[in-house]
């Protein structure tokens, strides 16, 4: 019992659970009378995934989606940085931003779809708009909270050494609010994925091979259930990769090391 507990306390316990889930999955697919159209076995999913990788565009579609998320996140980070900096400086702007957040944050991007189609159209721009909309508001909330959490004496120290405002922001404010910025980025990343997949499912390829959302949608309309799962596997895989090799590493190098987490 102790040994088992010890195993699940390790950092790789996630992977043990994944293996257990896969075993249960396969058992259900094989041992119960479910239709493979509803519950395909791992071999079928694996074959579909391999086939999509070898003969299809799934890797490029994945890169396309990740590229969109990346661009969307950068726009979101820059915009939220500007907006939260301004709202920390000016109380007038702060009340404006607060109003925007209470109006727009609860609005799912997908609910705005009819308007986006009319105003922006249906291309990559529209998908980017949905991504930025879904990441911007929670990130502003996080960044503003981060800036507000900075001890006032940090500003005094910066002034004491006669630093320029830019230097105070980049050398003191940003590292000081980094735990909040990372938390905001994590939320942004998760929301950007969701927004991208749902927008791609609706807007389709729009001039290229499309993204992973389009792949899944296509598998669905052509009733290729193992293909749907192949797409999901790719998304889960990307999610774990980014979580374990990007956010965890960043946190280890920063907030964990600084004792801020």
């Amino acid at each position, binding site marked *: 019992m102790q040994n088992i507990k010890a195993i699940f306390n390790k950092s790789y316990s996630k992977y043990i659970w994944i293996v257990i889930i896969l075993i249960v999955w396969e058992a259900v697919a094989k041992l119960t009378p479910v239709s493979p159209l509803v519950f395909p076995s791992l071999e079928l999913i694996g074959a579909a995934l391999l086939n999509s990788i070898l003969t299809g565009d799934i890797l490029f579609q994945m890169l396309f989606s990740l590229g969109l998320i990346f661009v969307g996140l950068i726009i979101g980070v820059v915009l939220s940085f500007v907006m939260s900096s301004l709202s920390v400086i000016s109380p007038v702007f702060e009340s404006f931003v607060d109003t925007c957040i209470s109006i727009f944050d609860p609005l799912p991007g997908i609910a705005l779809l009819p308007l986006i189609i009319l105003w922006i159209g249906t291309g990559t721009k529209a998908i980017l708009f949905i991504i930025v909309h879904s990441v911007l508001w929670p990130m502003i909330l996080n960044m503003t909270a981060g800036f507000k959490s900075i*001890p006032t*004496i940090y500003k005094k120290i910066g002034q*004491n*050494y*006669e630093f320029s405002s830019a230097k105070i922001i980049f050398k003191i404010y940003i590292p000081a609010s980094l735990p909040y910025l990372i938390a905001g980025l994590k939320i942004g990343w998760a929301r950007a994925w969701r927004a991208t997949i749902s927008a791609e499912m609706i807007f389709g390829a729009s001039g290229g091979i499309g993204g992973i959302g389009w792949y899944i949608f296509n598998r669905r309309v052509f009733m290729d259930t193992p293909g749907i799962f192949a797409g999901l596997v790719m998304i889960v895989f990307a999610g774990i990769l980014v979580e374990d090799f990007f956010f965890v590493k960043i946190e280890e190098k920063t907030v964990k090391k*600084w004792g801020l987490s």
Partner: protein
Amino acid sequence: MSETIRITNLSKLYDGRAILKDIDLTIETGEFMCIIGPSGCGKSTLLNLIGGFIERDSGSITLQGQPVLRPNQECIMVFQEFDQLFPWKTVKGNVEFPLRNNPHRYSKERIEELSETYLDMVKLKDFKDFYPHQLSGGMKQRTAIARALVTTPKVLLMDEPFGSLDIQTKSELHQTLLEIWKRTRTTIVFVTHDVREALHLADQIIILKDGGVYQRIENNIKDSEETMKKIMGFLSP
């Protein structure tokens, strides 16, 4: 001795009420001045005015003949709060921070040399690669003092820097501070509400009361019970 700071006719109002009125004070170069007084008497306000962190309502403050209008590098403040250190920098990184980002550029060798010197002075050489969250309160304040001194300012402003420390650590830091003062001869303005601390450290003690300088005491004999009694007498209402 020449004067470093001259304060004339200084007044500061909060919500229309004068917290400091018509203060005249000169601080000589190399002096260790403690400002004491009951809480709310404006000690910290006076220190922040000298540092240029807040604006005065009337009067003037000069630092070596130049009017003080904003915070400046020649008057570095050390705070009571432990979180005045940057958690994302090591002890050494914190001490080097003002040098690395200084408008006046320091060479790499000079930065190394200065940070080593002051880390040595505050006895933190063995802890230079520690992050603030790994330090005790006393070590944090030592780091803050090293960081304040590393740019060799004319004046060190200290706002109850040892107020949150236990007695043992406090007296260790007193000793270190006096050693540093003797070596660097930096002018120190030190605010405290602890009369014994002032008696131990200062050579000049200012008693602030009712918004003005109530008494100025030459503290020639350190830790004297007599002076203690005298001050308590002044402070009682």
